[in-house]
C-alpha cells in the first residue's frame, strides 16, 4: 500500500463484512513527539480470541477465493517498520478495535495520504452505515459524524450527488483547518 489511507480503507472493509452499523476512524498526530496513531473501531460481530490471532497471520483469510489475507498483516507491518506498534482487540457480539502507532520521522514511514478520500468513499458507497471520522493534530481537531448529518438530511440519502459534493467540501475544509 502506498499510503496509510489505503490501509484504513482496507481494514474498514473488514468492519463492513463483519456487519457493523457504526465504524469509527481516528487519526491523531502529535507533532512534537513525531507520533501518529490510527484507530478503526466497529460494532460488528467481533471475533473469537482464536480469530484475533489468526487475522494477523498472512496465511489466514475468511475469504473463500484465496488462501491468503494480507489486510491486517500489511497494516501491522507499516506500523512496525517505523518502530511503532499495532494492536487488535475484539469481542464477539460487541465489535473490533484496531490501533496502529507510527513514528512519523522514521525513514520507513509511509505517508498518511488522502484520508478524506477514503472517508468520503466509505460514506457514499455505504449510505446505510454510519461513520465517524476524527482528525487531530496537537490541539486542533475535526470530526465528521454521519449520524448528525442524517438528522439534518432526513430521507435524503448520504450518496445523493449534491450531498456528496457538500461532504467533499466539508472534509476538505475540516482537514485543512486541522492540518493548517
Amino acid at each position, binding site marked *: 500500500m502506498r499510503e496509510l489511507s489505503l490501509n484504513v480503507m482496507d481494514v474498514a472493509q473488514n468492519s463492513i463484512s463483519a456487519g457493523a452499523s457504526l465504524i469509527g476512524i481516528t487519526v491523531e498526530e502529535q507533532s512534537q513527539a513525531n507520533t501518529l496513531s490510527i484507530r478503526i473501531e466497529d460494532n460488528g460481530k467481533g471475533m473469537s480470541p482464536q480469530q484475533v490471532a489468526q487475522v494477523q497471520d498472512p496465511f489466514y483469510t475468511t475469504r473463500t477465493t484465496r488462501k491468503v489475507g494480507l489486510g491486517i498483516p*500489511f497494516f501491522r507491518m507499516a506500523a512496525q517498520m517505523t518502530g511503532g506498534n499495532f494492536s487488535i482487540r475484539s469481542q464477539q457480539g460487541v465489535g473490533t478495535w484496531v490501533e496502529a502507532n507510527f513514528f512519523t520521522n522514521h525513514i520507513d514511514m509511509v505517508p498518511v495520504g488522502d484520508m478524506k478520500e477514503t472517508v468520503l468513499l466509505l460514506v457514499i458507497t455505504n449510505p446505510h452505515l454510519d461513520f465517524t471520522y476524527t482528525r487531530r493534530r496537537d490541539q486542533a481537531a475535526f470530526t465528521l459524524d454521519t449520524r448528525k448529518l442524517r438528522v439534518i438530511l432526513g430521507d*435524503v440519502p448520504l450518496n445523493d450527488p449534491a450531498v456528496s459534493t457538500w461532504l467533499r467540501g466539508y472534509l476538505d475544509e475540516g482537514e485543512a483547518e486541522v492540518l493548517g
Partner: protein
Amino acid sequence: MKSLEELMAIREKARQGMGIRNDKHEGTRVVVGMATCGIAAGARPVLSALVEEVAKENLDVQVGQTGCIGICQYEPVVEVIEPDKEKVTYVKMTPEKAIKIVHKHLMGGEVVQEYTIGKVGK
C-alpha cells in the same frame, strides 16, 4: 466553512428533485472490488472516478463496493450489473477507463468490449 445550513438547503432541493432523475438506469449497480488486492492495485481512484462521473451526469446508478471476487491478477475490477442482463466484468481498470464506461455503457447502453475480462483475459 461548509455549514450545516447549507446541508439543509441541499435537503430541500433534493426532495423537490427526487423522481426527475433518468429512470432508464433504475436498478443498475456498479461495484468496484475493494479487497486488499483491489485497493493495492489502484481501485480507490477508480471508485472515485465512478462516483464523481455518475454524480456529474446525475445518473440513477448505485455505485458500490465488493470484496475479492477471486481474479486478483485482473484488479482493479469493475462489475456492471443491470436488471435482466448478464453481468459485465471490466478488468485492469483505470480512472480514465472507468469514465469511458460511464459514458459508453451506462449512458450509451454499449458494452466497452475491449476492457472486458473476455477480451483482456485472452
